[in-house]
């Protein structure tokens, strides 16, 4: 099916997210504005104004009532989805690179950037899911990443662990209650930044994307690498599709090199790999800048990608997508 082009941002997209029902898409970009869209037709529901700098990250509460954002104005903000009302602002010394709610929606995690005098940290707040409740400023947990700065982080199943990806290509597992570092494994090439970390539906494993041109499927419990997907371009994002056993990888030549090369060379394509067999199945072209984020519909019926080119492209999967099966999968299905 033809993709829906969401034209509302004036600058490069940094993250896009579906809500739990998959009917809404939230997007943030470097133009300071948060947008909410209907996923089925691409109509814009509204915008959230208030941030004073480029936005790096967004996450929506499992109840779809609350929205958290973080950006280069050193604030993390909480919004009411329905009205666009700013509920709370947390201020920091450096910018916020990642926000994520826990699966039960009772905690909110933020990753702060490292800058001279400030180490990168992962902070956790207790969240009251009631829209009108007063949110606390007190951090329930603070993890300082003194080895290598954290670039991405998230809660595991049952908010048991916090898993973080680092600039040096390692992944850490922290106890989500105490903040104790339990494991640190080099998953990607050393000193190749981990650019994204997205969860499987049950959060027992996750996928990481890295500048080393690979994406890896890693277990939550012991950070064991299950699968590895090798591409020919630096990756910015990777997502695991529910329903079908695929992964979607997005990336492309670094934004700074793009002007010197043609779109054909830039490899600005979303790539589909088979999750278990690690083979490439297909590619989706369209963006004319690198893909900064790919998000999958929670029910696995579509995906959307945010590009450096300032567009969000929303795709709904067609029947052949669901019908495609390897011979051995068909055998399995017919058992």
């Amino acid at each position: 099916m033809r993709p829906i082009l969401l034209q509302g941002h004036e600058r490069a997209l940094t993250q896009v997210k579906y809500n739990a029902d998959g009917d809404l898409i939230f997007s943030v970009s470097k133009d300071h504005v948060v947008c909410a869209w209907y996923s089925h037709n691409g109509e814009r529901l509204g915008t959230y104004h208030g941030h004073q700098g480029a936005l790096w990250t967004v996450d929506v509460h499992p109840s779809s009532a609350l929205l958290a954002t973080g950006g280069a104005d050193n604030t993390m903000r909480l919004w009411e989805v329905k009205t666009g009302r700013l509920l709370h602002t947390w201020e920091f010394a450096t910018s916020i690179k990642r926000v994520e709610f826990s699966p039960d929606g009772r905690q909110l995690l933020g990753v702060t950037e490292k800058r001279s005098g400030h180490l990168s940290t992962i902070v956790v707040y207790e969240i009251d899911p009631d829209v009108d409740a007063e949110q606390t400023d007190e951090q329930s947990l603070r993890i300082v990443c003194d080895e290598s700065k954290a670039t991405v982080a998230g809660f595991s199943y049952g908010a048991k662990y916090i898993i973080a990806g680092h600039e040096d290509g390692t992944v850490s597992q922290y106890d989500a209650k105490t903040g104790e570092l339990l494991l640190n494994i080099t998953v990607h090439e050393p000193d190749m930044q981990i650019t994204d970390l997205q969860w499987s539906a049950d959060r027992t494993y996750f996928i990481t994307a890295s500048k080393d041109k690979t994406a890896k499927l890693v277990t939550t419990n012991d950070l064991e690498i299950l699968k590895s997907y090798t591409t020919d371009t630096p990756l910015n994002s990777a997502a695991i599709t529910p329903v079908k056993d695929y992964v979607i990888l997005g990336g492309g030549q670094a934004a700074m090199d793009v002007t010197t090369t043609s779109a054909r060379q830039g490899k600005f394509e979303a790539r589909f790999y088979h999750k278990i067999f690690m083979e490439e199945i297909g590619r989706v072209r369209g963006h004319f800048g690198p893909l900064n984020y790919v998000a999958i519909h929670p029910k696995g019926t579509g995906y959307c990608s945010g590009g450096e080119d300032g567009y969000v492209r929303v795709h709904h999967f067609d029947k052949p997508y669901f019908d495609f099966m390897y011979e051995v999968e068909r055998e399995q299905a017919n058992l």
Partner: protein
Amino acid sequence: MAPSYENLPIEDDEFDESEIDFSDLQEQYEVRLEEGLDAFVVVDGLPVVPEENRQKLIKFLLRKLNSVGKVKEDGVFMPLNDKNMTEGYAFVEYGAANEAVAAVKQLHGMPLDKKHTMAVNKLTDIDRYGREGRIDDHYTPPTIEPFQQKEHLRSWLGDIEARDQMVMYRGDKVGVFWNEKDDPPEMVVDRENWTEFFVQWSPLGTYLTSIHAQGVQLWGGKAWSRQKRFAHPGVNLVDFSPNEKYITTWSHRPLQVDENHPVPSLSLEEDGKNYVIWDIATGKPLRSFATIDVPSATVDAEGNPVKKKMQWPTFKWSSDDNYVARMTQGQSISVYELPRMNLLDKQSIKIEGVMDFEWAPAAPRRDGIKGYEQLFCYWTPELGSNPAKVGLMSIPSKEIVRTRNLFSVSDAKLHWQSEAAYVCVKVDRHSKSKKSLATNLEIFRVREKGVPVEVVDSIKDTVINFAWEPKGNRFVLITTGEIPAASAVPPKTAVSFFCPEKAKGGVVGNFRHIRTIDKKNSNAIYWSPKGRFVVVAALQSQQSFELDFYDLSFEKSKDEKDEKDKDLTANLQLMSTVEHYGVTDIEWDPTGRYVATVASAFRHLMENGYHLYDFKGTLLREEHIDRFKQLIWRPRPPTLLSKEEQADIRKNLRNYSRIFDEQDLAKKNTANRQVVEQRRRLLEEWVAWREQMKEMLDEEGIEVEVEEDAGQGKDADAEVEEIEEIVEEIIEETEEVIG
């Protein structure tokens, strides 16, 4: 293995330094003090003359000696013996040490007359090497090493499936692989940093050549061990003789070989030279040459002479490795005899104005010529009132067997057919006004009596490329219209096919035009090494990356036969057209079954990698590899089967092909089975792991809402709420007042 620190013997604690014999080291590293004799040379090999002629000889000698430096006043001392005769040597003192060095370099070995050749050595060297005791008085024969069996250099030809090998250079890695058609090539050997610049096969595929800053190395055998090494610092290019007996190395920088810069196996003689010709079997240099600088006639806008593009190979080999020749443009061709590398008949062949020459690529079998000969073809431009000429010269007799005069020639190119049956001279001719160009083909039928020349002058445009069918008599050429000066887009080209007419009595008929295909971007022609099939491609083009696969002996059904082409020895058919984005190189495998096209990182960094096609142009395989640089098929030596045996195989091809098809199928099935097995295993592992995870989650008491089958099944659809959406778009609104 070198002893490491841990396993050094420790028992020799009472180590007495004075017991060690350092004399060999002392000798080797003897510090050479300023002996004040550095400006002296000893000249040997002079005529022995009586005292009264001594001054005359010295005067004669001084003329030579002063050509490289200034000999000190009374600097020549020529001692006399008891009979008042000179001894045939002299001591000479130069003004400075470096002049003495120059004298050794340039005057040593210079002939004085027919009988006498000068030997010039530094006095210090004579003292050093010639001192008493340094040279053993008794001859001891050199020990001959016992024979050691070497690896078989052609073992790859014994492959049971008769697969071909190829070398791939990507990133810093060089690997040799078996071609596996549409499956990933099977690795034979893969090494990091095997070469520094590029790789090259020797012409018969025996050696893989790697190029390093220090020189050239040849590799081969089953273990890919080093076979030979040729030290040539700064080497840029290498060229093999056709039968792999010799190798030429070239560096744009003259060699520097002297006491301070010793180079293994090179001597002072090689100093200042650019080319070295080596014997591959011994690894020793045969002879070295400096680049000839011919002042160019053309000058650029600022009046500086335009640097001519260097011709490579500069030293061209005759087909049997017996001769190598170099042209001094506009003057002469120097033919050297192998293996002594002496100039044939001690002089270069004067050919005034010579612009280019090419050896016949095979032994010419001219009508009525029984004896041994090699041929080369050359051309000279118009000189004064003399017309331009194309000539064929026979070596070693130096007899000109055929010449042909040509008029209004602006350029010519010489194209030999692979069996030396024809040579086609592509003559670019300008009109009287010198404004427009057209091309004539002058085809010399070398094997026919008297070497008749056939002219093809039906071509209106300039021919930019020409290629003979290997072992055949058909050819393809590409023409282009006038090139507009300030146009960024190159003009369209046209591809024309030619073949001989059908003729009775086993002779080759006149060359006739088959067809021309217009409005192409093609500029390169690649014939299959076995003939018949040809790929015409657009290389280094910005707009087009097309490759056209043609068959010149296409078998049509009887009724389809074109009346027009019935008396031609060809039936042209375009089999397929494919595109390979960014293609830079095209290579047929030596059997003519496959074509590899490469987008090389040497030229650009866009989508580097290779494609593999069969001869029909069916894509078998494509692979993108970062910084992919080279893919070269390993050449095969000529077949050992006789003509009859080959014909026999061709006759029974159907039987053979059935066996091969079965083999291919069996192999494919095994491979497929393996892949399927592998996938089944992966899937089972995955399912098992997922079960384990589910159990774990249950134990932890965590409920995850996962609708594994959502979106796909019908029950999921039941929950979906249909929302009808009506979109109204007002395209235009106009208001009209009526009445």
